[in-house]
């Protein structure tokens, strides 16, 4: 009887995967909401608190936040009962408010980001009461909200990096880092507030965050190819959002009976903020790994900043002047790229310390 010979399935979901996926899923909801919302404002316009893109943004932080809270409460309960806490779930537990809570450090960060999102939501409401429903992405409260979501995304990277010796940990860390990189392209718009007529702070910020996250990924995993995996994942997100954002804005406009704006060009807003050269930079990061990190970092930063206006011309048409401001931007992006590479490598090492692997038992 073959049936009796087959052992009952003992495959279970790896420990830590479910809450980690919930946090990552929440961050991806936020990302979808953001690209949709940006496109909505450029292609359609009318806004309320409860538009569908807004609900995605709120839901993203809610899902990540509740998953984080649940893990912290369960870890606290385990700690109170003096049960062993498995650090594969979000890393070592740290005491919060004295020893009131025991929070795995990854979930502490992701949950803190989600809690901050609530606080900055109130700050944003107050702001809109005073300034009207300004549909500008880079108002101070919006940057506060974007930073809060970014913190949740950093937490997601940490949560998966802890499990980097398992396949799901590697895939999750790459996906979470890609989401953080894409999101950071929008957060960088806050740098418009930096008064610098001699260079473009946004281009420099774009180069800085891109290089930093690529190097972080290159050094956080046990194997080579982390930077390339993140670069390719970002390109996939860019391609999917390139199609999704204008499509979703149009479908939602049709569903709510709203017309598209006159003179809408339909160019995807968020996807076009992502440097298209990122895969090339990621390949360079992988190939030049024997060089001191600041060299590929500086080169990557310079290339990204140099190609920002080229990409704009490719997508929107027109031309751009090769002037002192452009050249200064490239030089500064090279300097910041070098710094970003060094920081990224260090952050990669810090992520490795989170893991309960053999090499880190002393940390």
């Amino acid at each position: 009887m073959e049936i009796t010979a087959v052992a009952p399935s003992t495959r279970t979901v790896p420990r830590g995967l479910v809450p980690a996926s919930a946090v990552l899923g929440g961050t991806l909801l936020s990302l979808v909401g953001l690209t949709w919302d940006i496109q909505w404002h450029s292609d359609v316009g009318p806004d309320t608190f409860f538009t569908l893109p807004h609900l995605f943004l709120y839901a993203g932080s809610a899902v990540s936040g509740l998953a984080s809270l649940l893990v912290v409460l369960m870890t606290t309960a385990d700690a109170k009962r003096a049960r062993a806490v498995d650090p594969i779930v979000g890393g070592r537990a740290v005491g919060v408010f004295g020893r009131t809570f025991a929070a795995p450090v990854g979930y502490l960060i992701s949950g803190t980001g989600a809690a901050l999102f609530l606080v900055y939501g109130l700050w944003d409401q107050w702001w809109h009461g005073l300034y009207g429903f300004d549909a500008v992405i880079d108002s101070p409260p919006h940057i506060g909200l974007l930073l809060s979501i970014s913190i949740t995304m950093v937490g997601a990277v940490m949560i998966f990096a802890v499990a980097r010796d398992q396949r799901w940990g590697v895939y999750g860390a790459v996906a979470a880092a890609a989401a953080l990189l894409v999101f950071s392209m929008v957060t960088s718009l806050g740098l418009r507030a930096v008064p610098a007529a001699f260079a473009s702070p946004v281009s420099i910020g774009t180069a800085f965050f891109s290089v930093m996250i690529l190097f972080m990924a290159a050094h956080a995993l046990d194997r080579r190819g982390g930077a390339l995996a993140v670069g390719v994942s970002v390109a996939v997100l860019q391609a999917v959002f390139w199609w999704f954002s204008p499509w979703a804005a149009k479908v939602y406009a049709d569903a709510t009976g709203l017309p598209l704006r006159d003179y809408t060009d339909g160019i995807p807003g968020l996807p076009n903020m992502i440097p298209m050269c990122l895969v090339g930079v990621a390949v360079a990061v992988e190939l030049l790994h024997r060089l001191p990190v600041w060299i590929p970092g500086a080169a990557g930063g310079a290339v990204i900043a140099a190609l920002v206006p080229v990409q704009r011309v490719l997508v929107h048409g027109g031309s751009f002047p090769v002037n002192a401001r452009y050249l200064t931007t490239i030089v500064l992006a090279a300097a910041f790229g070098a710094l970003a590479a060094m920081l990224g490598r260090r952050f990669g090492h810090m992520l490795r310390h989170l893991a309960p692997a053999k090499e880190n038992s002393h940390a």
Partner: protein
Amino acid sequence: MRKTLLGLLGAAALLFGLATPALAYEPVNIVHTEKVQAGPYDLTVGFSTWPVKAMQSLDFTFAPEDGIADKTGKLTMFYGQKEFDDSPLARHPRKREVWGLDIHAMPAQGTWTFRFDIDGPAGPATGELKNLQVMEQPGPPMGLSWAISTIPLFGLIAFIVIAWRRTRPASR
């Protein structure tokens, strides 16, 4: 199970019932108008708040007396003497019978000029709304608003510094 479902449905109904006013798109309420003569075209510029304050968003409407159907145009904004921006005159998304700018904020305090280049049955013509005074921004100084808004960033940096110090021995 049924109780749970009913409870959830009730909560959803309550949420969306209460949220209904927030789901409605705001109508465009014009509280102040100015007249602009662009050659043969009489243009009424409408503002949904008055006076205009820097960074405070409002709806602008640009309405030729006999409609926009057979006309096209361009709006150019000047801050003082300096050209700031230009764009084709597009229908207001929430008031489609006129041109307009929806929830648009003037970025800086000072004197602004709107120049309208209109082309229609009576040929091309230009008119200007001069001396549009944009008042000081409301609310706290921007430095304070930015300081409040970047607390998460500085919190993250502080966390990184702590983590950096704790992981130093293993750094190469």
